[in-house]
């Protein structure tokens, strides 16, 4: 192991993602080689339908890779059991909660499930971790509210707090900013950035907020039709990668401001 690979939380080796059915194999993207470093905020961007969710689902073991390997903390993802994986990686998905009749505290406490005993009782350590994640996400005032009383932005914060309570090296979020207004989009992403600084956790999220991601992320993973490229936002801009994201007829990337503009 070299010095750099020690700080890698997650690496993919020639990963190929997609779906298999009896009739055919649909490859969505292949030759994916990305490295996620410890304590970094990484944004995953790409056009609709390019396979961001599929990539995240593959990285989080919800779905199997077609080829290649995902290595998490030096160990192949397929060698992890559910319970081992739950102590290394936590998720914030776009799935609707089945029950919103839980209090904020109860929902965040569910993040401690991998550590609790057979009936799920919280130890003092568990409680300390839960309170810590509540404070870090500024949810103290909402602690006893029911989840159905919350706005989308508040609920997203609760889901992040839950992932935080799971106390894992890596947190993966699938489009955490959808359905949120401009302020809350910025708020959530800024919160994620602060969390990586405070806790030294690695956070990978997919988003359509490319301009916000450019400003906040340590590294970005850009998916376009040909390839999956990862680098720092500055390097990606210099290389002109963002210009390749979308068809060129309507919007263009302005490297000066780091924003997309409508072509006149």
């Amino acid at each position: 192991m070299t010095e750099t690979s020690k700080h890698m939380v997650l690496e993919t080796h020639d990963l190929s993602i997609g779906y298999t059915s009896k009739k055919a194999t649909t490859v969505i993207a292949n030759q994916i080689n990305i490295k996620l470093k410890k304590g970094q905020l990484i944004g995953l961007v790409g056009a609709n339908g390019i396979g961001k969710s599929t990539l995240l689902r593959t990285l989080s073991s919800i779905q199997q890779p077609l080829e290649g390997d995902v290595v998490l903390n030096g160990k192949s993802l397929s060698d992890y059991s559910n319970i081992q994986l739950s102590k290394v990686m936590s998720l914030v998905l776009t799935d609707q909660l089945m029950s919103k009749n839980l209090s904020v505290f109860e929902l965040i406490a569910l993040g401690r499930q991998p550590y609790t005993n057979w009936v799920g009782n919280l130890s003092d350590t568990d409680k300390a971790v839960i309170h810590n994640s509540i404070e870090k996400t500024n949810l103290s005032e909402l602690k006893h509210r029911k989840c159905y009383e919350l706005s989308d932005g508040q609920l997203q914060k609760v889901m992040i707090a839950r992932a935080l309570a799971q106390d894992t090296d890596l947190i993966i979020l699938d489009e955490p900013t959808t359905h949120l207004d401009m302020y809350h989009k910025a708020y959530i992403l800024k919160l994620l950035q602060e969390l990586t600084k405070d806790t030294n956790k690695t956070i990978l999220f997919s988003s359509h907020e490319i301009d916000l991601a450019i400003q906040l992320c340590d590294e970005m993973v850009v998916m376009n039709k040909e390839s999956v490229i990862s680098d720092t936002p500055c390097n990606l801009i210099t290389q002109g990668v963002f210009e390749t994201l979308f068809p060129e007829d309507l919007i263009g990337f302005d490297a000066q401001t780091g924003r997309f503009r409508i072509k006149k």
Partner: protein
Amino acid sequence: MNISLGSVSIPIQDIFHSILGTSEHESWQYIIQNYRLPKAFTAILVGSGLGVSGLLMQTLFRNPLAGPFVLGISSGASLGVALVILGAGLFGGAFSVILMSKWSIVIAASLGSFLVLLAVLLVASKVRDTMAILIIGLMFGSITAAVVSVLSYFSSAEQLQQYIFWGFGSLGNLSWNELLILFCIYTIGLLLTVASIKALNTLLLGENYAKSLGLNLKQSRYIIILATSLLAGTITAFAGPIAFIGLAIPHITRQIFNTSNHKILVPAVFIIGAIVMLICDSIAQLPTSDYTLPINAITSLIGAPIVVWLLVRQRKMVF
């Protein structure tokens, strides 16, 4: 309270004497010890068991309409009983006498629900989607219902009446021995439920989250289905298909306690299920009259308005 009600009125004081075996009235003592006490116990087991299995199904299938019978348990039991009662005529003669005994009905019902459940489990191991299992359970229900109607078309009026009577449900026909068997299987089902409390709470987040929290989804699903079938299957075998309790009790409990936490819900459903069943049974006795109404009708007559009232009062579904 429940024990004191019946077609023969017995003063409360004498009831305690009868239970202790010190009553002066032998007939009262007999009624209490061999009829009303087992009936009250049955009511408690049936109410709590069906309530808990309903809760398990609603959480597992993420569906407020699910009850213990969605997996086809009751239709399986009905099929077994229908084959015995209605099919008995086809075999004719002495054979039918053996078939008509009560134990054969219990065995047929257990076997029926067990076989349907086995089929559902077999399909469940192939299908990953929980919703699909729900539909498959309903399909099995339709198939058995169809077979039952074909059978009833070919059977005599008396057989049909006997089958319909079984379908009314009954708490009062159990001897202490039968009760003991019911209790043993019920306890296993309940222990499995308690062991699944953590998994049930995790499932509140949905299956993908549950998996990411380290839950062994397949195993938990099997345990929950097994617990339900043990509870609902045996209860149906002994007491007939008792409607509504399994569906309604979890809703009533959620409305009262306003929580989805299974650490509270499981014991609460247990207690409320038992209480509601005892009340329904007392009403079915029609106090001071000689008639006993079918328990199946009472549970729905009493329970449905309660659920409607609770929903209207709260103006929203708590799930």
